[in-house]
């Protein structure tokens, strides 16, 4: 296909250079490199951990309540006598999946809205969508996710919906900004002049050229999404029990904090290290994409 190698569409050359820049940045940055390895490991743990360590995370043995770590229960047991290690391992599947799926939802819808509003900047659609985004910004931090999750009721799917909507404002503003800067460039004007349709210009030209910032903010929004999902779980509007989820485990740990302080260590550390690793990688990717941009999203 001759069109896929033209510089205007981005094509393989651009993709290779982006990949190259990201890879070089990750390898050159020790923390980011260690974080990337940690993330690969945690995904492997989520996939294979529950198979290797074959203990039912829902099995309640009341005789074994609140036991400190031992050979039999390496991370101890909670107030229902459930094995904490098993809950961490199964919880990794849930927490990673929810965080990732929520971020993907926000990125997909945010990108589509950002593309459309940037492409038709100044139109009634742009005005309407951007006013809605402004209003969504009026709900700071986790609040928008709380409102949506509380309205929808606790379920795995609803948490993902809440996280997706939570991610839309930031992503759509960023993509809109990128599109605004691209759309006056010659290759876009040239596409218009040879009669390319709106959809073709948006998806074949604009998305390809906005892919750098989208990847960077997609990575950072995975971190925000895992953190927010844990917050919802802690508040009791996340994935409903008895499904093991790291945030909800911390809520159980809070209720037994005086009797069994160790209960909070493992789920808390699991969330913290995972979010930290994603943030390290996201920072490195941002530096690779734009060495000057130091402005960070406030969470």
């Amino acid at each position, binding site marked *: 296909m001759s069109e896929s190698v033209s510089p205007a569409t981005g094509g393989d050359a651009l993709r290779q250079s982006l990949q190259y820049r990201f890879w070089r940045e990750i390898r050159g940055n020790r*923390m980011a490199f260690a974080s990337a390895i940690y993330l690969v490991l945690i995904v492997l743990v989520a996939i294979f951990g529950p198979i290797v360590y074959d203990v039912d995370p829902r099995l309640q043995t009341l005789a074994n309540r609140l036991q400190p770590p031992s050979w039999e229960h390496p991370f101890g047991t909670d107030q229902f006598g459930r094995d904490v290690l098993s809950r961490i391992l199964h919880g990794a599947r849930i927490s990673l999946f929810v965080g990732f799926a929520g971020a993907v939802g926000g990125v997909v819808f945010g990108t589509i809205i950002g593309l459309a509003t940037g492409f038709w900047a100044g139109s009634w659609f742009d005005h309407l969508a951007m*006013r*809605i985004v*402004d*209003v*969504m910004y*009026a*709900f*700071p*931090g*986790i*609040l928008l996710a*709380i*409102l*949506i999750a*509380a*309205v*929808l*009721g606790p379920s795995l799917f609803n948490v993902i919906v809440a996280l997706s909507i939570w991610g839309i404002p930031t992503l759509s503003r960023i993509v809109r900004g990128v599109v605004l800067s691209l759309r006056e460039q010659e290759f876009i004007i040239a596409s218009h002049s040879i009669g390319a349709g709106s959809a073709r210009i948006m998806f074949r030209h604009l998305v390809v050229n906005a892919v750098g910032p989208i990847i960077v903010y997609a990575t950072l929004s995975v*971190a925000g999404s895992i*953190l927010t999902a*844990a*917050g919802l779980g*802690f*508040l*009791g*509007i996340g994935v409903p029990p008895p499904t093991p989820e790291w*945030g909800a485990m*911390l809520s159980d*740990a*809070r209720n037994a*904090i*005086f009797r069994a*302080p160790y209960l*909070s260590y493992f*789920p*808390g550390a699991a*969330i*913290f290290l995972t*979010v*930290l690793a994603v*943030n*390290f990688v996201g*920072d490195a990717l941002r530096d690779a994409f734009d060495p000057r941009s*130091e*402005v*960070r999203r*406030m*969470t």
Partner: protein
Amino acid sequence: MSTYLIKRLLMVFPTVFGAVTLVFFAIHLAPGDPIALYIPPDFPVDASPERIAELRARVGLDRPLHVQYVSFIAGIFQGDLGTSLHHRNPVAVGLLERLPATLELGILSLAIAVVLGVTVGIVSAIRRGTWLDNVAMTLALFGVSIPNFWLGMLLMQLVGLHWPILPPSGFGGSIFTAEGLRFALLPAITIGISGAGGLARYTRSSMLDVLNEDYVRTARSKGLSERIVVYKHALRNALIPIITLLGLSFGSMLSGAVIVETVFGWPGLGRYLVTGISNRDFPVVQGVVLVIAVGFVLANLITDLIYGFVDPRIRYE
């Protein structure tokens, strides 16, 4: 200045109005019957359709959507945010009782976040590329990445139980009394550390931008000491963009308080919200979300006004 002020004030109304509308439509656009959100805890599970219809009429959900919307808005302007299903008193009363505790905690947290974050950011920028910068920025990323409720639980165990320096949880009255402050410190430090991470990162980059400006080079080249260049020329200009962040930070302090209050048993809006969630008391959830959103919009208004005052170059277009 006065046109800027008036224009900026007028901009608040659409945002507040939009936030109220969004909360209203969140209930009605969600799949399922909105009446499910208004069923009191003592309502029989096998209630007859007649009793549900009666409840629907009492809550007003039987009216056409536009009538409900108008009466929702009219109610809010009259201070009517509905009745708590659990406490059985007006939500507005419940909110007013708990607002001072959250505001005081938010202000103390913001003070901690600003002092810590801005200091670390400035030191990092001045010593950029050194080990000090690396350590500071790694710590800042820790602050951004740590779940604040976990940090709270760790601090509680360490400073409240292991070394009993501060009370591990509870409330001692207003933070402007010694006893009240003692109780407020742990939750405020918890929220403050999380906020300081983001502020430190932003301050550092704002400071670095300014240190690259021509007027800083001019100041250096005319032989001023590094100290004067940094504190008199660079810092004052770097602080201007940081001011806009304070409004945003106040918002994240409030939303941080929502979770951290639960950890420390702090009797503010956050705990009201969380007990509202666990009691399935939707009017309370809705009321707290609205109050925090409006508070956040006002905090941004105030910072924008301060910004316009501090930097006369800024005028609202």
